[in-house]
């Protein structure tokens, strides 16, 4: 199989959100070393070939003007320059803070909405279609209006990140909550659990893998929100570095900023993947 990167929401069948996969299949004992390492090895070779070709095309053959298209070396140099001048740290911390606030609030709001939506039939009927249709629409089109409401700066970015986190998390949580084992709920009631306790002790734990699936799905979408917000209406943040560097023909810097973004999203997705595997394990045994 291809080494599919974690968190590829497009891969999901019909509903855009995919159900949480069970814990990874146990590795067979007889597998040869070559077999197990083949995919990553090919990927590595690909990467090296790609970088070499890129280097060759830009620096050695000079096929393109390096003002417009930097070489790998230029990108590394630009990244080092950004890091040394402290610009990287400033912008990165702005981006990280905005993202964290939006993503944190969005996750909480999404989980609560999802739990309520997933457990009440009426809420399910009324809220789910709206959530699906919001999921389908380009929320970033709100960016200019948000800027008018909240001023140029962090406000609109946080709202965009919030919205693009909340919707996938709510959809996924609701899916998980509707599938809570009926007998578990009955057992809870028999033992005299209150409504709140049913939520906290049965529905929430049951939905945890789904919630994490939603959180993972929200990483790329919230990153899009962050990027658009920063590129269109903000003086600081990694997205603004991309725009400003490009407008000054410093494409190396723009590429370096994009690389930082990629690295961030990959790390976040990996962390959530790990969490998913940990929390998903008990269910396949149960």
């Amino acid at each position, binding site marked *: *199989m*291809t*080494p*599919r*990167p974690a968190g*590829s929401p*497009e*891969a999901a*069948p*019909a*509903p*855009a959100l995919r159900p949480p996969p069970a814990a990874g299949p146990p590795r067979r004992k007889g597998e040869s070393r070559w077999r197990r390492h*083949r*995919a990553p090895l*090919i990927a590595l070779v*690909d*990467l090296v070939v790609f970088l070499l070709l890129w280097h060759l095309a830009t620096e050695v053959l000079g096929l393109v003007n390096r003002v*417009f*298209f930097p070489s790998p070396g230029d990108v590394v140099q630009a990244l080092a320059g950004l890091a040394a001048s402290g610009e990287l740290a400033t912008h990165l911390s702005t981006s990280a803070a905005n993202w964290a606030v939006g993503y944190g609030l969005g996750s909480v709001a999404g989980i609560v909405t999802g739990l309520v939506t997933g457990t009440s039939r009426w809420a399910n*009927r*009324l809220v789910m*279609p*709206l959530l*699906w*249709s919001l*999921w*389908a*629409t*380009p929320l*970033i*089109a*709100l*960016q*200019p*209006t948000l*800027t*008018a*409401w909240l001023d140029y700066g962090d406000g609109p970015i946080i709202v965009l990140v919030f919205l693009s986190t909340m919707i996938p998390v709510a959809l996924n949580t609701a899916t998980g909550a509707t599938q809570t084992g009926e007998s578990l709920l009955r057992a809870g009631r028999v033992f005299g659990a209150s409504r709140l306790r049913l939520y906290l002790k049965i529905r929430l734990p049951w939905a945890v893998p789904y919630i994490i699936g939603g959180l993972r799905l929200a990483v*790329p979408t919230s*990153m*899009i929100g962050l*990027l*658009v917000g920063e*590129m*269109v209406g903000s003086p600081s943040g990694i*997205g603004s570095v*991309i*725009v400003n560097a*490009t*407008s000054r*023909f410093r*494409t190396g810097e*723009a*590429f370096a*900023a*994009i690389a930082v*973004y*990629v690295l961030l*999203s*990959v790390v976040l997705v990996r962390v959530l993947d790990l969490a998913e595997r940990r929390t998903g394990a008990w269910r396949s045994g149960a």
Partner: protein
Amino acid sequence: MRELKRWAVALEVVALFAAWELAISVFHLASEKFVPPPSAIWQSFVAMAADGTLAPHAWFSTQNAVIGFVLAVVAGVGCGLALGSSRLVSEVAGPPFWTAYAMPRIAFQPLLVLWLGFGAAPKILIIFLMAVFPIAINTMDGIRAVEPSLVRAARVYGAGRLQVFVKVQLWAALPLILTGIRMGVARAMVGIVVGEFIGGSQGLGYLIFRRSADFDLASALALTLSLVVIANLLMALVSLARRIAAPWYAEGVR
């Protein structure tokens, strides 16, 4: 039952807008300039349509969207077929494909403008880039999920590789391809908007940006809501196409 559900949702949307209207026009919870009520939004939409500002911008966006999206469908289905049916292709071309997929494509928009200019080209390209991946990935999944017995049956009857492709695999994968196309529509909408936000001078996205900057929020929201309506209509259309073209494919949601 289904009808009832649809009515309930329609009623809910109407109720939401009515509450919004009441809150602003009757109770004056916020300034009308700041949070325009639905009636004002509708009025500015009608005004924009009547005085001819809307049509050229809408036409520009539509043109770009259609070109970019058609290219994305052709390329996406092609790549998906190749990746899904050949192990070799998927192992050699897979990693660069997934890497490209992992890239935040919209981050390249300023660079696309630098490379291709302020015209339609970078917009078409970003729409293409946004839409192509869901289509390719779903096609790939669809091809991989084709029942081997179907393929074997075709082989037994003497079908060649191309025939198996065209007559069996493509059809069996059709529901998932259409699912990919539906997701592609949603992504393409993002592409349209971002493409025109950054380095744009025409189009609906640009108009939203321009009007908000002039604090004409009623117009901006009118345009945003039209994008929402267009996106949902297009997705419903693709769902309908799937129901007609692949009625055997049972789907859980919608």
